Structure formats: structure tokens, C-alpha cells
């Protein structure tokens, strides 16, 4: 999603840059340093449901009279449908409807990301409205039947013939015509400070390297699915989504109906990682439900996920570093091209890390896109940063080697005192501390000289790399607090895909309200609740936190008013009270206060309800806000076969205040494990002759299995960011960043070989 754009739009709509700088910082959140429920390893609130098999996912909502959908996918990448023969499918047992562009209802194209803060469309192509084909795998027909078996079979009976047009499929050819995108998530596509090429040429130490990274699939174990019902003019969609309210708004536009008439529910999402957005399957299912007047379940097959829901795109990158003799950088160049389509907006921001990480005398950071006839690519865990850090951080390792410097020492010498490209002050940056702590714990000092440590046939090596991801907070979210004598419910239409949102925000609410954890609940996953923001850009935790904080201010004001002058709180201002022990109390005068139950009872009220929208994320305009980490890896590489085994891994992070150590550790580990996949095995095979994805299967698209994953050690600085709600940063994406490089650097240390193309499969090490 257009993270930066959305943020900027919201902020600059109201204030200009100069005003931003003049606006005072928000006061430090008192909860940033307080220890209550926050900071504790509270077990997940949805644990019993999930381990009991009782959590209901999108394809699991029982509905009377349900029909099941199956899709037919195009087999060409570009061109048009010439003939469509659906007779056999229509006549097949159990078939309720065969929908093609010939009978699909008229639908407006989806509003694409960034065209509006609430636009959710992954692409702005019209969906099944005409015979044209834009990618190999585009749905050309949808079959509805009484059972899934019948639908699947009937789908195999639809005959389609095509007239192919010339398709741009080769990345290398398209690279020659690469062009600058309008922006890279609201940031300029090119940043040049000084004459970096000249500085590079003049530098005493230089590396100038090319990198390739392949397409990736999110591979959430839950395939995309939706259960769709029209109740009269009202539409209900049980979806697997990480963008509830944006989906609601975008669907309203597509179907020409009112937002209020659409309800999206998504209480559980079986993994998202950026992939669970609005793709064509939900839209087609809604259209089919409309045509057939029957409820519809669409559960994509695993192949369907690869054909219909895009993944991370491929990149070609250059990193060139020029260093002075003292180890400072004279030039930092990071440029390259990502494959994209003409209909989407996701340029894979691989130059972002280099914009903020290191000091250099000059910079050239530029990225372009090459148009390919393929399924729209999208955001996947740390888009850009994941593959960008692979290039940047292995190049730094090569530079360190060329200079005979320890790679951590090199990073000390290029540590900036302010953001090197924006000039803004860092809100909270403790990267070198993370390095120091990590190095100590990992035993970095034991790192062998390249190719010098061998155990039997196994060569052993260690590598390190920086992890980084921006801090984002999304505007537009509102939280509601319902307070009763029994406790409180906090409501916001946000998402739980396994990050631990419901647990962490319950902890937050408990501390914010001064209630025990058992007496608060966090409700989410439903557009009938106050609008949440997307679960993307690692922004959700602080976005919810800011809304809850705002709602709490409203609540306190209401409570003081209700308490009135007969209360021990009488005459106190909001700033003088704090929430604790199940009520409001004077901050200093510990004896003076009143419980919520008592306030409510005296006022004769069963509950107080307070709702507020989060303030605009001014902090991101004022400061350079990022999370950091140091990733340490030990590998064993077979000298015989080139097989790589990761034997040890440590992530040392600086991500503000950690709210729940247990769920946080899991998030970091999950990111690191996806990073191991990126480093060693993951590649969506895109056949450039046909534009077809050839491994749409979890047997052939390899993700790490149990045996690939060692016990992963995770530590953190736990230093609150004074400028963020709760002192926290999002942590969902940083885990994957730097991992590719840490593994590649470890492999070099073990074998003496540099591999600059992902994944590092064994053939590259023979």
C-alpha cells in the first residue's frame, strides 16, 4: 500500500513542511516506559481457539445453500479471447452458473492503491469485462456448482481459444526500456547528492557489483478465500484480508453501491505477509453471487493463488561503494530496475535502505521499472528492503573485505549522525548497540578467516548484515472504548493474521485503562467496527495504539464529567489524573480517586462509550523514523555438494519498546525464517517464453521446513522511541531484512565464494 503517500497526503493536506517542523512533538506516551501488562509475555488471547481448531477462517463460515466457485485461467499472457465454449460446463452435473466476460455484470475497475487512501486494488485492470487478456493466468471464466468437486470438474470443461498479441516477458529486454515510476511510494525515484560516479572513480577503495533477485510468493498456508452473500442489496463478505475498510470502500466503487451496504468480516487470516489484499477472486465471487442469487464460496486452489494473487517481483540491482582510506564512504550508489506491470504501482523500493542507513560523501539512489505482461506484483514482507538489503549489505561485506576491515567496524565508521539524505534527526537509532550486543552474544570474535574452518566435509562460516525497516503510522483509524463496571471492550476494524495484534492491544488497553488484562477485550476484524487502517508496512500496532490513546483521552474527559463534583475526582483536570486500579486517580495524591464502577453507578449508567480518530502521523514528517537490527548467521556448506545448512542465527533488534516479548520474538523469527527462504531456496519460476508461472505448488515452490530452521536467538535493545505511541515500532517486516545478506556473507566466509543472485542454491556453490 502507498504507505508514505497516504501518510503524506494526510499530513500535507493540512500543513506544509515548514509548519511540520514548527509543530511541537507530541508528549512522550507515559506507557512507553511503564511496566504493566505491556512488556510481559502474555500468551495469545486467541490461542485456545486456534489450537482447538475452532478459529473460523474465511472459507469456513457455514452458509445455507452455498455454491462453490472454480476459476478457469488464461493460457496466454497478452491478447484476446476469440471463442468461449461453455456448453459442456453448463450442462455438467451440479453447475449453477458459468460466468465469463460475456455475461458478467458490469463492474468498474478497482481503484488502485494510492489513488485514494482507501483504495485497495492491486491493479486497475477491469475484471472479466471484455475479451482482452493481460497476463498468463488471468481468470477467463468462473464456474459455480453445488459442490467443489462439481465446480472443479466443470471448469476443466470450459474451452477457450485465444488470439495472442506480442507480449513483453523478458526482464532483460524490458530493462533496456525501463522508465522511472512517478514516485516510489511517494518518495522520489531518484536521489542524487553530489557527484557519486566521480567520487566513486576517485575513491581509493571501490566495489561495483550487480545483483539479481527473483520473484517470490507469499506462500501463506491459508489460500486466499472468501464466502460471499447478498442479503437483498446488502453485501456480506467473509474475507481473508489485511485491508478491511479499504476493501469495503473499493468494492463500493466497483459495484456502484454504498459503503454502508457492504460488510467485510475477517476475524482470522491464515497468514498475509502483504498478499491478502483485494484481488480478482473476491470481486468475481461477488459478481457470481449477484448473477446466481446464491451465496458463493471461492477458495483458491494453490495454483489459483499463484495465478491470481501477485507476489514479490524480480529485480536487477547495482551497488557501488567508494571508500576513503579511513573507512568512510565517499560514494554510495544503489540503482536498479524492478519488473512491474503497466497497471499497478509497486516498484519494490529496494533503494530505501540506502537512503537512511549510512553516511556517505555522495549518493546516487535511483530505481526504475520495466513493464512486463504479468500478474500485478505486490507488497510482500518488507517489499524493497528485503531484496535491497541483500544487495547493499553484501556489497558492504565485500568492501570490508577489500579494506581488510571487520564488517561491523566498517558500519561503525559510516554511522551517520542524522538521516543522510533527508537531513532529519533520527527519532531513535541504536543500531551500533544492536551490533555490539549481537556480536557479544553470537561470538562474532570467533569468526574464521574465509574458507579456513572445516568440520569433515562441511565448511563453516559466519556473516552479518544490517536489518532495517521504516516506521510507518497510518492515518484514518478510529478506536472505540466501551467501558462498563465489569471492564472494557476496545473496538477497531483491524486485523489479526498472527502478529498478535489482539493480544498486544488487549495488553495496551489494560494498561491504558488501569484494568487487569482479564477485564479487557480487543474486538477487530469487522467493518461494522470503527475504521481500522491496513495491516501493512508494519504500521498496525502504532496505528491502533494512537487511535486508542486518542479515544482514551475522550473517555477520561467523559468520565470526569460524569463523576462530577461529588466525586473525589471533582475539580480535577484530565492532565491531573491517571488510570489505574480500575478507576481514575490523582497522579500524585494516591488516595484520591474513584473506580469506574463507582462513577458509573452514581451516574446511573451501564456504560460509557468513547470513540476518536488517531491524530495525523506528524512524527514521521518531523523525524527520520526507522527500525534497525543486526543479523548474525552461521552456515555449514558441504564441500562435496554445495548444500547449505544454517546452523545458528541471531537477530539483534532496535525496534523501540517491545510490547510482548513472546509474540515479538515469534514475529522476528518468522521474518528471519522467510529471509532464510529468500536466501537459499525461494523462486517463483516465471517462464519468459509464455509468461506462465511454472511452479504453482508448495511442493515445487520451496519454503523452509522444520529441518531448515535452527533455533533462532532474538534479542533487542528495548529502548522506547520517544516520538511514537507506546514508544513502539512495528516489527512485522524488519525480521526478513538483512537475512539474505547475512546468509550470503556467511557463505562467503565459509567457502570464499560470493553469490550475487538469489536464491543461493547449491549449484551456485559447486
Amino acid at each position, binding site marked *: 500500500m502507498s504507505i508514505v503517500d497516504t501518510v503524506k497526503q494526510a499530513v500535507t493536506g493540512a500543513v506544509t513542511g515548514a509548519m511540520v517542523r514548527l509543530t511541537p512533538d507530541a508528549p512522550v506516551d507515559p506507557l512507553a516506559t511503564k511496566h504493566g501488562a505491556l512488556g510481559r509475555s502474555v500468551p495469545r488471547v486467541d490461542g485456545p481457539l486456534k489450537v482447538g481448531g475452532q478459529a473460523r477462517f474465511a472459507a469456513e463460515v*457455514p452458509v445455507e445453500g452455498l455454491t462453490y466457485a472454480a476459476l478457469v485461467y488464461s493460457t496466454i499472457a497478452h491478447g484476446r479471447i476469440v471463442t468461449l465454449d461453455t456448453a459442456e460446463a453448463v450442462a455438467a452435473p451440479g453447475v449453477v452458473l458459468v460466468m465469463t466476460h460475456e455475461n458478467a455484470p458490469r463492474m468498474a475497475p478497482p481503484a488502485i492503491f494510492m489513488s485514494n487512501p482507501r483504495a485497495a486494488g492491486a491493479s486497475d485492470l477491469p475484471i472479466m469485462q471484455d475479451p482482452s487478456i493481460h497476463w498468463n493466468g488471468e481468470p477467463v471464466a468462473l464456474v459455480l456448482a453445488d459442490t467443489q*468437486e462439481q465446480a472443479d470438474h466443470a471448469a476443466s470443461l470450459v474451452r477457450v481459444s485465444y488470439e495472442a498479441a506480442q507480449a513483453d516477458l523478458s526482464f532483460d529486454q524490458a530493462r533496456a526500456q525501463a522508465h522511472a515510476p512517478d514516485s516510489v511510494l511517494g518518495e522520489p525515484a531518484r536521489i542524487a547528492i553530489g557527484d557519486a560516479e566521480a567520487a566513486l572513480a576517485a575513491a581509493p577503495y571501490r566495489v561495483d557489483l550487480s545483483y539479481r533477485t527473483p520473484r517470490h510468493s507469499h506462500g501463506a498456508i491459508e489460500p486466499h478465500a472468501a464466502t460471499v452473500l447478498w442479503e437483498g442489496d446488502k453485501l456480506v463478505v467473509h474475507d481473508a484480508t489485511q485491508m478491511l475498510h479499504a476493501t469495503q470502500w473499493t468494492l463500493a466503487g466497483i459495484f456502484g453501491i454504498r459503503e454502508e451496504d457492504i460488510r467485510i468480516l475477517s476475524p482470522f487470516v491464515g497468514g498475509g505477509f502483504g498478499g491478502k489484499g483485494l484481488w480478482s477472486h473476491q470481486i468475481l465471487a461477488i459478481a457470481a453471487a449477484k448473477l446466481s442469487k446464491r451465496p458463493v464460496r471461492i477458495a483458491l486452489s494453490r495454483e489459483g493463488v499463484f495465478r491470481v494473487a501477485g507476489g514479490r517481483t524480480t529485480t536487477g540491482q547495482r551497488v557501488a561503494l567508494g571508500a576513503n582510506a579511513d573507512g568512510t564512504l565517499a560514494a554510495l550508489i544503489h540503482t536498479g530496475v524492478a519488473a512491474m506491470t503497466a497497471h499497478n504501482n509497486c516498484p519494490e523500493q529496494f533503494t530505501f535502505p540506502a537512503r537512511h542507513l549510512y553516511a556517505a560523501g555522495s549518493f546516487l539512489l535511483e530505481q526504475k521499472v520495466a513493464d512486463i505482461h504479468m500478474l500485478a506484483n505486490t507488497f510482500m514482507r518488507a517489499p524493497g528492503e528485503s531484496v535491497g538489503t541483500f544487495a547493499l549489505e553484501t556489497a558492504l561485506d565485500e568492501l570490508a573485505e577489500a579494506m581488510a576491515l571487520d564488517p561491523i567496524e566498517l558500519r561503525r565508521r559510516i554511522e551517520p549522525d542524522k538521516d543522510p539524505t533527508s537531513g532529519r534527526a533520527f527519532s531513535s537509532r541504536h543500531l551500533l548497540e544492536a551490533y555490539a550486543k549481537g556480536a557479544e552474544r553470537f561470538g562474532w570474535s570467533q569468526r574464521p578467516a574465509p574458507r579456513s574452518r572445516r568440520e569433515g566435509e562441511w565448511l563453516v562460516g559466519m556473516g552479518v548484515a544490517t536489518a532495517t525497516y521504516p516506521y510507518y503510522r497510518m492515518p484514518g483509524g478510529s478506536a472505540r472504548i466501551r467501558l462498563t463496571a465489569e471492564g472494557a471492550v476496545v473496538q477497531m476494524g483491524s486485523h489479526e493474521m498472527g502478529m498478535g495484534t489482539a493480544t498486544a492491544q488487549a495488553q495496551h488497553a489494560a494498561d491504558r485503562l488501569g484494568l487487569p488484562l482479564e477485564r479487557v477485550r480487543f474486538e477487530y476484524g469487522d467493518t461494522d467496527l470503527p475504521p481500522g487502517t491496513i495491516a501493512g508496512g508494519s504500521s498496525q500496532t502504532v496505528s491502533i495504539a494512537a487511535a486508542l490513546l486518542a479515544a482514551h483521552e475522550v473517555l477520561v474527559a467523559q468520565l470526569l464529567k460524569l463523576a462530577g463534583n461529588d466525586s473525589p475526582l471533582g475539580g480535577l483536570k484530565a492532565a491531573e489524573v491517571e488510570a489505574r486500579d480500575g478507576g481514575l486517580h490523582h497522579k500524585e495524591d494516591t488516595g484520591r480517586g474513584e473506580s469506574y464502577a463507582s462513577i458509573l453507578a452514581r451516574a446511573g449508567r451501564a456504560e460509557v462509550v468513547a470513540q476518536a480518530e488517531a491524530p495525523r502521523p506528524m512524527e514521521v514528517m518531523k523525524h527520520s523514523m526507522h527500525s534497525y537490527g543486526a543479523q548474525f548467521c552461521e552456515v555449514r556448506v558441504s564441500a562435496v555438494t554445495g548444500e547449505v545448512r544454517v546452523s545458528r542465527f541471531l537477530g539483534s533488534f532496535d525496534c523501540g519498546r517491545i510490547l510482548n516479548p513472546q509474540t515479538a520474538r*515469534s514475529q522476528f523469527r518468522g521474518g528471519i525464517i522467510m529471509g532464510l527462504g529468500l536466501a537459499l531456496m525461494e523462486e517463483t519460476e516465471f517462464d519468459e517464453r509464455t509468461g506462465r508461472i511454472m511452479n504453482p505448488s508448495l*511442493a515445487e515452490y520451496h*519454503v523452509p521446513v522444520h529441518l531448515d530452521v535452527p533455533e533462532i536467538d532474538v534479542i533487542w535493545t528495548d529502548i522506547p522511541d520517544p516520538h511514537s505511541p507506546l514508544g513502539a515500532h512495528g516489527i512485522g517486516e524488519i525480521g526478513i531484512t538483512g537475512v539474505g545478506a547475512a546468509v550470503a556473507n556467511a557463505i562467503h566466509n565459509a567457502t570464499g565464494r560470493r553469490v550475487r543472485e538469489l536464491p543461493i542454491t547449491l549449484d551456485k556453490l559447486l
Partner: protein
Amino acid sequence: MRFTINGQAVEASVDLRTSLLDLLRDHLHLYGTKKGCNQGACGACTVLVDGNRINSCLALAVQYQDRAVTTVEGLAGEHGLHPLQQAFIEHDGFQCGYCTPGQLCSAIGMAAEAERGVPSAVTADLSAGPVVLDHDELRERMSGNLCRCGAYNGIVEAITQTLVTGAAE
């Protein structure tokens, strides 16, 4: 077709093409067992048949008539969650929870295999002896259950605590 599912006799008349997984989910509304790939490649659909773990997505229901099937819904006892389920919560052995039912059933079947002395690809000496479920053995034997959230460490801890004899010390 007749089955015994979680101890209960069940009759169902379904298409011959229906997999055991779809029988459970779409016909019996036992949605605890998950569909991750329908290709035998992820293990989310793992159930126990007569105590043996299988991938129910590649199992035609008709082939499993008159067999005893245990799903995640059948793991808890009268006194609440199975100790392994409890341990998954304690060790954070899941995030999104989608692979979890398969991991749980697989772990229980896996422990029974080890108990019977079934070796694995990492067993050093095949010639006999009881299997010791060390870290490598556990990870190899659980490798048929993918977890994209990456909860592997917690899963292994939970299994070790619950199903590996002597691990408590």
C-alpha cells in the same frame, strides 16, 4: 459411507471424488482440519487414521470407510485441552494458527511412530534401538508440516516438552 470420527459414528453420502479433507470440512463442517495446498505438500490437512498421520487432502474419503479418524477437534479430553495444545500456547507454537491443527495431529502421530521405533532420515544407526527424539530427529520428522509464519522453534519446544519422554528433566 460410514466413518468413526473423533469417536463418533458418522454416515455421509458424498461424491466418490470427495477427499477425506473435503468430507470433514465441507460436508461435516469439521473445519479444524485445514486445506493449505490440496497437493500433499504442506501438511495442514494432517489427521490421524487409526493413530497414523496422513495428509487427508490426497486421501479419497471412499478409501477410508469404516476407519477411525481423529481430527484436531478430537484431541481435547474431558478435562480440557490436550497437553500438547496447551504447550503450543505456552511456547507460542503458532502465529496465524492455520498450520496448527496439522502440526498438532502430525506431532501426535510422529511421537507414536518414534515410540514404535520407526527410524527417520537423520537416524544415525538404523540397526535397532529405541529412537531418541533429539532436535534433529524432531525437526526431520515434522518437516512434512510447513509453517509460513515460521513458528517452528515454538512448535519444537512444545513437542519436546510434551511428547518427548525424559525431556522434562
